[in-house]
């Protein structure tokens, strides 16, 4: 068991170190995230009241778009020079590999969420009424997206059509996360009188299922 977590930590640390060196997230994905917020502003006619009302939904749509990029990057890191073959040859358990890859994506998503939260506060005038709910939602949704995304990244890896296939495979599956996280934010940002904590329960169920299912299914996909 300690071997499992050591392997997972090793892989996660490796992915984060690569990110720290290459700065793909910081130099490309983060600006893209802000750009999406600005584009929504243009599309919705720059009326801050409208933007504020839709801020939770726009926030989570932006997160999903960025997550797609982060996952594509996570897959391509292993495919650039046959590293995936090396990982398979190392005898590391596919579940540990899964947890490691997903953890690295999770950390990157959390960074993006922090950035986007600042974005909707500044650009859309949102106010955080329940910081605890925002944090809890952000973390649980990031777990759900990172795990599902890592599993689906493995599914589409090695295919010439990966970039186009991944969104249509992944986004429908994440529909409940989008709905749940948006409603929880509606509550946390004081937009609507809904019980955000109940939605958090749904996100928690999704996150647990995605983590366990992903770890189990990853072996069937990587070991081909």
């Amino acid at each position, binding site marked *: 068991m300690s071997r499992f977590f050591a392997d997972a930590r090793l892989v996660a640390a490796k992915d984060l170190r690569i990110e720290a060196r290459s700065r793909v997230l910081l130099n490309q994905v983060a600006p893209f995230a802000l750009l999406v917020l600005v584009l929504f502003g243009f599309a919705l006619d720059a009326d801050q009241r409208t933007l504020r009302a839709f801020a939770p939904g726009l926030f989570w749509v932006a997160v999903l778009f960025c997550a797609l990029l982060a996952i594509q990057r996570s897959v391509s890191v292993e495919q650039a020079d*046959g590293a995936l073959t090396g990982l398979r040859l190392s005898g590391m358990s596919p579940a540990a590999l899964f947890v490691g890859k997903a953890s690295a994506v999770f950390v990157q998503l959390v960074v993006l969420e922090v950035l986007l939260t600042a974005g909707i506060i500044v650009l859309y005038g949102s106010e955080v009424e329940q910081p605890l709910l925002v944090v809890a939602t952000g973390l649980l949704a990031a777990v759900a997206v990172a795990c599902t995304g890592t599993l689906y990244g493995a599914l589409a890896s090695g295919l010439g059509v990966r970039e186009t296939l991944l969104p249509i495979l992944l986004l429908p599956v994440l529909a409940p996360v989008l709905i749940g996280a948006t409603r929880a934010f509606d509550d946390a940002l004081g937009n609507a009188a809904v019980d955000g904590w109940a939605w958090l329960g749904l996100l928690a169920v999704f996150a647990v299922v995605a983590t366990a299912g992903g770890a189990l299914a990853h072996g069937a996909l990587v070991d081909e």
Partner: protein
Amino acid sequence: MVELNAAVALLGRFPALTGVDLRIEAGETILLQGPNGAGKTTLLRLCAGLLAPESGTVTVLGHDLTAGSERRAVRRRVALLGHSTGLYEDLTVAENVRFWARAAGLDAELSVERVVGALQRLGLDDGLLDLPVHRLSAGQRRRTSLAALVVRRPELWLLDEPHAGLDQAGRSVVDKLIGDAVAAGGTVVVSSHELERVRTLSPRVVTLAGGAVHRDTSP
């Protein structure tokens, strides 16, 4: 050690191996040769447990590779040097070698000294250790990738064109490496176009053609 009987392997729907019969004893060194597309790379990947045989049997180090769990078990005990180096471009040479050592289950302290030793054996001077891989030449990458294998001290070496892309000094380093591996009791299978060079290392030459063993000579 390694035994294949009528082993067939597919790449997608292409039969890369069409029925290989081959027996390799422990401590032997084998030179694989044959025209391009004869199945050398696929044979090495099959023995490393990366592919499932479509039919026939493959036994490596006592593992029956028709079973998925056995393929996983054997991977840890073999070293495969493929065409791609399996290095992360943005990490340094030392980081790459250390990562692969730890991924193979070597614990941290042990691997540090092994890393340095392995790199020195491959003639990579200390100045390169902290360079990111994307700044290395092709030959230096190849050596780094070999160093990542050396630290694992595998029982079976599967080397696919180890001399490719190396300069004269690099080739000698590879030859010495193979010699050391054999001296340490390891078994080595090398595919190479450098026939003269490898023949001095290995008395047994197996020629593949059309995805099967065409000739098996011990001159």
